[in-house]
């Protein structure tokens, strides 16, 4: 990660630059969602850091260009110089960008390595993409064995304009993924039909779900709450209608949820067995 002071400088510069926008964009989202995991915080910082560099270079390059547009006009009688090369300058503007890139790549590398480290997870959940819903199987850790399907809860009437749209229009599901706060959750992704992508912006996690293969990613939520995302790979007709909702709860509440789910599943299992027994008679 870039140093704290750079990070702060980045914040200030971004704030100053967008001050003009802020009145216009008051209630508008124009930046990454507030981070809710250490990786997301890193990504946030990295983005701001790069934006500062970009703005500095932007001002430099286009300062020169617009000065030229302003001062070196034919209409002002400016006579054209005839120089057309300068080895020193050309070397400099090849080497300096290269050095700047090293300063960008270094913190980015650290974050990439952290993103890829899925070891020592507390809980492992398999997310299965299906046209057009998600299946969740808790395969390891507290809650092992819980399994359910999660799909869009927004009523058709709202989509087709026959009813007022809710606050979380298109971002609400019948059964959200529930995880405890502060625990490392490993998500395995796969799919049954076409490629989908499991994306949770607040955690800076996006992992394609590929039919026939298992891939993994991870997050550790730093705060409780409900977080919302959407499928991020075109997967056919209802690609826009398969949201992902994660409910992050305190540990005791998570344990209670697990117990309740187990009970429900046991009851469902028992009734299935009974039904099977009845039908076999």
């Amino acid at each position, binding site marked *: 990660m870039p140093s704290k002071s750079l990070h702060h400088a980045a914040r200030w510069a971004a704030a100053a630059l967008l001050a003009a926008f802020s009145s216009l964009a008051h209630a508008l989202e124009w930046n990454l969602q507030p981070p809710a995991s250490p990786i997301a915080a890193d990504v946030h910082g990295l983005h701001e850091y790069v934006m500062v560099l970009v703005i500095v270079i*932007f001002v430099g390059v286009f300062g020169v260009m617009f000065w030229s547009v302003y001062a070196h006009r034919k209409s002002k009688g400016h006579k*054209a110089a005839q120089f057309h090369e300068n080895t020193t300058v050309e070397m400099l503007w090849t080497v300096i960008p290269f050095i700047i890139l090293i300063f*960008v790549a270094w913190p*980015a590398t650290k974050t990439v*390595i952290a*993103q890829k480290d899925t070891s020592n997870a507390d809980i492992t959940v398999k997310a299965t993409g299906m046209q057009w819903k998600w299946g969740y199987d808790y395969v390891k850790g507290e809650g092992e064995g819980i399994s359910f399907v999660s799909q869009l809860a927004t009523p058709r009437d709202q*989509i087709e304009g026959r009813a007022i749209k809710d606050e979380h229009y298109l971002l609400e599901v019948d059964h959200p993924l529930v995880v405890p706060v502060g625990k490392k959750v490993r998500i395995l992704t796969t799919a049954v039909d076409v490629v989908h992508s499991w994306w949770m*912006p607040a955690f800076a996690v*996006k992992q394609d779900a590929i039919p*026939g293969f298992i891939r993994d990613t991870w997050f550790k939520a730093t705060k409780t709450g409900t977080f919302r995302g959407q499928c991020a790979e075109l997967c056919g007709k209802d690609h826009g209608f398969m949201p992902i909702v994660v409910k992050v709860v305190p540990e005791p509440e998570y344990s209670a949820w697990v117990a309740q789910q187990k009970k429900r599943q046991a009851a469902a299992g028992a009734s299935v067995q009974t039904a099977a027994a009845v039908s076999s008679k």
Partner: protein
Amino acid sequence: MSAVVDTHGHAHGHGDHHGGYSGIMRWITTTNHKDIGTMYLWFSFAMFMVGGVMAMVIRAELFEPGLQIVDPDFFNQMTTMHGLIMVFGAIMPAFVGFANWLIPMQIGAPDMAFARMNNWSFWLLPFAGSLLIISFFVPGGAPGVGWTMYAPLTVQMGMGMDLTIFAVHLLGMSSIMGSINIVTTILNMRAPGMTLMRMPLFCWTWLITGYLLIAAMPVLAGAVTMTLTDRHFGTTFFNAAGGGDPVLYQHIFWFFGHPEVYIIALPAFGVISQVIPAFSRKPLFGYASMVYATSAIAILSFIVWAHHMYTVGMPVTAQLFFMYATTLIAVPTGVKVFNWVATMWKGSLSFETPMLFAIGFLFLFTMGGFSGLVLSLAAVDIQLQDTYYVVAHFHYVMVAGALFSAFAGIYFWLPKWTGRMYNETLGKWHFWLSMIFFNMIFFVQHFLGLAGMPRRIPDYPLMFETWNKISSIGAFGFGLTQLLFLYIVVKCITSGEKAPDKPWEGADSLEWTHLPTPPPYHSFETPPVLK
């Protein structure tokens, strides 16, 4: 462009220059580089209109949340065909049109090396374009898979997918023949004294683009052919159940797809490198380094493809390799931008329409480069992959990059081609309206992407509404503005004022200095004498 037809002059004294045909047969049988260049440009404009109408449908549906105008299936067909038609039907043929018109005149050659093949490369295009459009009218409609045509979604599509695959085959054949022609012409048909390092930069960028096309297009043909056999002949290249891998498709596609970005961008760089010096009245700064930078970009473009795939779950070493290789492209691209700015520096600038579009290109393309740098960082890209940030990024490169450069080129060479001047006031209006509406459409899409709006969705959560409205209004404005462009071009051809041989004071390549305006139907039948 009938003005060329009228004025090239049977006075030339060779009898009939059109191979004995007139009317439509003349255009079907022509082997003249100027005729073929003209057909490429008009075809590309027609496709630009078709693809543009699709963009209007997309933006109309996205004007507000909810499904209003089209159903999600048709929406997907629109995004798919908009992409394919704009990339393969509009932008690529436009620059091949420029190449046909300009390369022989700029290197002092009488025509392209393979004149009949040149005719064939063009005439494949209308058939390919028709296949794409016919696909809307077959059962199942056009494919709704995105222009990237990812497996295995392609297997679920109807017959329209097969038509699209054949269209891609035809387009690929056309591009390969076109580029073989360009490379051969440049390497073998330069006038005595026109050494490689004296060529106008436009010829250099096309020479390099020619090689990129020859290397990349067969790879795309392979990818879509495998898709075809997976669909119909029981192969499982991209199906895990038969030992294949859907991600293999993505690797193959992007091995073509990233060079494709530069196939589009390099000729645009070439046009800009002609226009900026002409209106700065000063030679291009760093000619040699421009050539080297272009070559470096071309070579790097073959080792960065998987930066389109940071989210498929590659090993950490692959993530890092592709990230480093990708960021490296900023170095030669930076060199080009610095060279253009240095060309303007201490020049004697004037701001006719071609120069306005060139400066617009420089400004906006560089912003596309900046967002490219942000996206190159694998860690950040995880957040932005497949969002509107990416849509904004590549439209800054494709529209503000390639399209603006094509506009600059059209205004720059139209007087030469037609012998008539366009209306400068209207040209400036075209520029300023395009500039304002372009940014209205795409600048706000950066915000949408950052805030988390996925691309290729027909409906979206409420928090994205305002930016989408602004974007849609910009899109309608941009679309209408292009009708003004059509008007300007038609008016120029039919009733523009007569253009002098060299309307631009600072233009210095052979088509300006050694040929009358408009040039004769057969130019440089004897090679020019170069000092």
